[in-house]
């Protein structure tokens, strides 16, 4: 553990490399590198490049620091910095819509932060320190008589972090902010920034409070219900959404809640599933957003039903789209499948009464909806049917855009084939 700076005994900035840092760092590094290479080509024609790259790099460094945080205050500091630094990326286009989306994102994040802060103040009183140590349990003797308050504080922290993770009811910023940002920025938003909320919840539940404390309490059941509602809601809305990038944003809402569901189940198998889903969703969704950028660029359309026969002109990109979609749905051998497999096993083994089967069933219904909203674009790309109109402008895709997409797709497959290496 490296302590950088110490205000007093309780408050210090310190960093440590542990198992979860490894997963988060890997995801952030791959996604930011891929997004950067992609940006070199994508942002060529856009204005304010200097601003974009500055904030992009700053954001990356802050996220790395956040994933390495060794105690809560360090984590929280970097978390807030990340929020502020990512706003310029959302607002990049400068239109009124972009600014509104940026503010919405900012204020929702603040609202979440207040909830987290409240929880922090309470917990700080009852915990001896706020260091992240895996599997630690809160000392039950010190909180005797105040269990209700501590539970409430934990719930507020979960709710606060869930703003970033896009869990219902605090998800509304996500569908505004993601579609409006430039493609690589939305890929980063959806792949990494959203995951920071997940990281926060994992850190609180497994590294500070301990799973046993909330197992079987109203906190667990409420958390479970919220995640299940979000999974279904996100998938359904994505199914109805005609605009590609907004559809992907709704898909993010649903898929992130898979991870949250894994956390809420509070057992090792489910957490393993959550971690795998964490990686698989990051790689696949990032690839999908980058591909969406390419598709929108070459067709000048943003609606899914207008994009036809893309597989004829861009077979490689469309194939990557299909593989990434299969990972989203959870078809072997992609990462999404392995994640879902462990999530379902974890769900069955958790002692949560009716939620066991219900959870597994919801995951499957959501998978069906996912197939419904992701596959048609890819399949119509390769099987447009006779008499289709060529809608592409015929521009070729730059290698700088194709290579990151390919690498991300391969990563999504690798997570599925060799899950043991990653988690």
């Amino acid at each position, binding site marked *: 553990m490296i302590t950088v700076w110490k205000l007093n005994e309780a408050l210090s900035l310190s960093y440590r490399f542990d198992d979860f840092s490894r997963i988060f760092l890997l995801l952030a590094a791959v996604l930011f590198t891929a997004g950067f290479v992609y940006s070199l080509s994508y942002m060529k024609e856009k204005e304010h490049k200097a601003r974009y790259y500055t904030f992009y790099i700053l954001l990356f460094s802050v996220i790395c620091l956040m994933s390495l945080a060794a105690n809560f205050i360090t984590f929280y500091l970097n978390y807030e910095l990340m929020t502020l630094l990512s706003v310029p990326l959302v607002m990049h286009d400068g239109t*009124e819509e972009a*600014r*509104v989306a940026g*503010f*919405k*994102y*900012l*204020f*929702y994040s*603040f*609202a979440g932060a*207040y*909830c987290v802060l*409240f929880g922090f*103040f*309470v917990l700080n*009183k009852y915990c001896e320190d706020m260091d992240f140590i895996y599997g630690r349990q809160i000392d039950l003797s010190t909180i005797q008589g105040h269990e209700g308050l501590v539970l409430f504080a934990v719930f507020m922290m979960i709710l606060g972090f869930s703003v970033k993770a896009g869990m*219902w*009811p*605090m*998800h*509304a*910023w996500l569908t505004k902010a993601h579609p409006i940002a430039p493609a690589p920025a939305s890929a980063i938003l959806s792949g990494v920034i959203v995951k920071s909320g997940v990281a926060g919840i994992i850190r609180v539940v497994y590294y500070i409070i301990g799973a046993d404390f909330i197992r079987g309490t109203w906190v667990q059941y409420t958390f479970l219900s919220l995640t299940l*509602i979000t999974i*279904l*809601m996100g998938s*359904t*809305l994505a*199914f*109805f959404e005609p605009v590609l990038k907004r559809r992907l944003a709704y898909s993010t809402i649903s898929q992130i809640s898979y991870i949250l569901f894994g956390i809420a189940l509070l057992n090792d198998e489910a957490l393993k599933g959550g971690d795998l889903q964490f990686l698989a969703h990051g790689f696949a969704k990032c690839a999908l957003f980058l591909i969406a950028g390419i598709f929108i660029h070459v067709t000048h359309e943003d609606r899914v039903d207008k994009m036809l026969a893309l597989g004829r002109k861009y077979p490689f990109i469309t194939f990557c789209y299909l593989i990434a979609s*299969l990972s989203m*749905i959870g*078809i*072997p*051998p992609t990462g999404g499948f*392995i994640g879902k*497999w*462990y999530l*379902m*096993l974890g769900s*069955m*083994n958790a002692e949560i009464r009716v939620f066991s*089967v219900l959870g*597994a*069933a919801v995951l*499957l219904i959501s998978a*069906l909806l996912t*197939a419904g909203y992701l*596959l048609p674009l890819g*399949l119509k790309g390769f*099987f*447009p*049917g*006779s008499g289709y109109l060529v809608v592409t402008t015929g521009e070729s895709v730059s290698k700088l855009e194709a290579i990151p997409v390919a690498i991300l797709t391969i990563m999504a497959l690798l997570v*599925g*084939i*060799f*899950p*043991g*290496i990653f988690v």
Partner: protein
Amino acid sequence: MFNELANLSFNPNGILGPGFSFSVDLFRLLYMGIIILSWALSLMFTPRYLKPYRNKTRYYVFTIVTLIGTLGVFASGDLFTLFCFFELMSFASYVWVAQDERKESLKAADTYLYVAVIGGLFLLMGIVLIYYATGTLNINELSNAYMHNLDKKEYITASAICMFIGFAAKAGAYPVHIWLPKAHPVAPAPASALLSGVLTKSGIFGIMIVGFYVMRHVKPFGIFVLAIGLITMVLGAVLAVFSVDLKRTLACSSMSQIGFIVTGIGANIIPMVSENGDLYAGDSMALLDGTILHMMNHTLVKMAVFLVAGVVYQNTHKLNLNEIRGFGRKKPFLATSFLLGALSLSGVPGFLGYLSKTLLHEGLIEPGFGSFTGLIEWTFLISGGFTLCYMTKLFVALFMEKGAAEYDNKNYMSFVQRIAVLIPGILLLISGISLIAIMNGHASTLSLLLEKAGFGELHHISFLSFEILKGAFISIGIGVVLYFFLVRLVLMDDEYKNLWPEWLDLEELIYRPLITRILPLILGFFARALDQCMDAFIILLRKTLFRDKPISEARLEGNALTHVVGYAVDYRRAMKEEKDYVPYDYEKKLNIKWMELQENVKIAKRSMSFGLILACIGMFAMLSFILVNMFL
């Protein structure tokens, strides 16, 4: 069920989580041999057939991928491996159905994909449930899972039903058969042969695992499977007789034959009661052998007849019986190949089909289903009659009647295609005769080998005795009567008529509206309500608590500060500069900056989340206050 010959677990570096394991017994080996043979025949047939079309590479690549998936299904030692290969097979074979890219192909492909995805999800649910209930996925260890885990029997039953739905969707059993009559006619013929002959069997293999291992001797489940099998058998046969499309008839026939096989499996699950009333655990070897032989029989038959249909299509590009009438006249080779398959399917003595159907028949009447025995037996015999009826209809239409068009009798197929079309028919005849000879009681090396490998005692039946032949002849008699009275009198005048009502289509009637309209409508309503509720809450707050004023269009032209500072700077510059200085209007510039700032603030204030943040600050303050009061 069968003695395992070899197994192999494969889990380097935690590949795919639980890892793969494979296991092989004689039945699986035999069937894998048939799969490879079928693929070889289909690939031999393909080059000439696909000559005029585009996208050939795609077809070949996905054919090979499907082969890997199918072999994997039959070689898998646990349900996880089976599921992975099953999905690979399902998705890769999508390309077959969509290959043509005609409108109806794409629609059929959609149906195929939906059924595959939904079936896959049911299967996954079943696998997860059984893993939870028994703690293992190894197929051999799952033997008698229900009887050994009676405390969790609800889970195992639910799991078995989920898995059954998943596998039945692939096998094409009622009521999840909908993809079968749609997908087979639109796929290229060598692919439909494999779809119908082999891919459906992977579903059957799965049903066997559920029935013979997990739910062995569970009577209600056996009756359920038996009932499904009987319905499929009759429905498929009736649909086939009514159809006037060559490949659709064959597809419906596949459905009917799948029904025979499922019936066999279902009857074999039911525990038999011995004469003194005790439950005895032995399985009916006649049923088991009949089921397995009928699987193989059906694969070979469908390879033959679908490839013949492919020959028809590659010359005429039509499939409607009225348009291809008389195509096969003066083509004795083609007629022979088709006839061999048709005879075996109809169960004419001498062929493999006779053997398998007789064994099924004997097995079905043996255990005794009380008053239902007669019903089951006659359903079985009448369905057999229908089989003969629609095969005769096809044969007569193709090879005997005179059609309007003249056809080329020389170069209608290549030499390699001839071999591919003939081999299955020959195999059917040879295996039929030799197996009848063996099973008539003449022990031979083959039968000893089969017995050793776990086929149990081979059922020694004197296949050529009158008692046994009677069943076959009743069926054939029913078929002849049906052909002359139903097909010739009712279903045709000059042309073949399709009297099956168009609207009576399970897919269009129930599934499509349910999946594409009703479910999304309900889900969508709730999802939208949930999506909007937070924003609606904030709007409510703004209208009530924060007293939101409407935006005024008038813009502020700066404030006092900007006026004063701007004026001062201007004045100072003007004093300092030369006489010809054109004053730079700092006052105006500051005013514009001020206006921009105001506008941004306005956007911020009007954004819904501003309300949220205010609410949260309020809550935070309140909670802090409570905290301070409580603890200090």
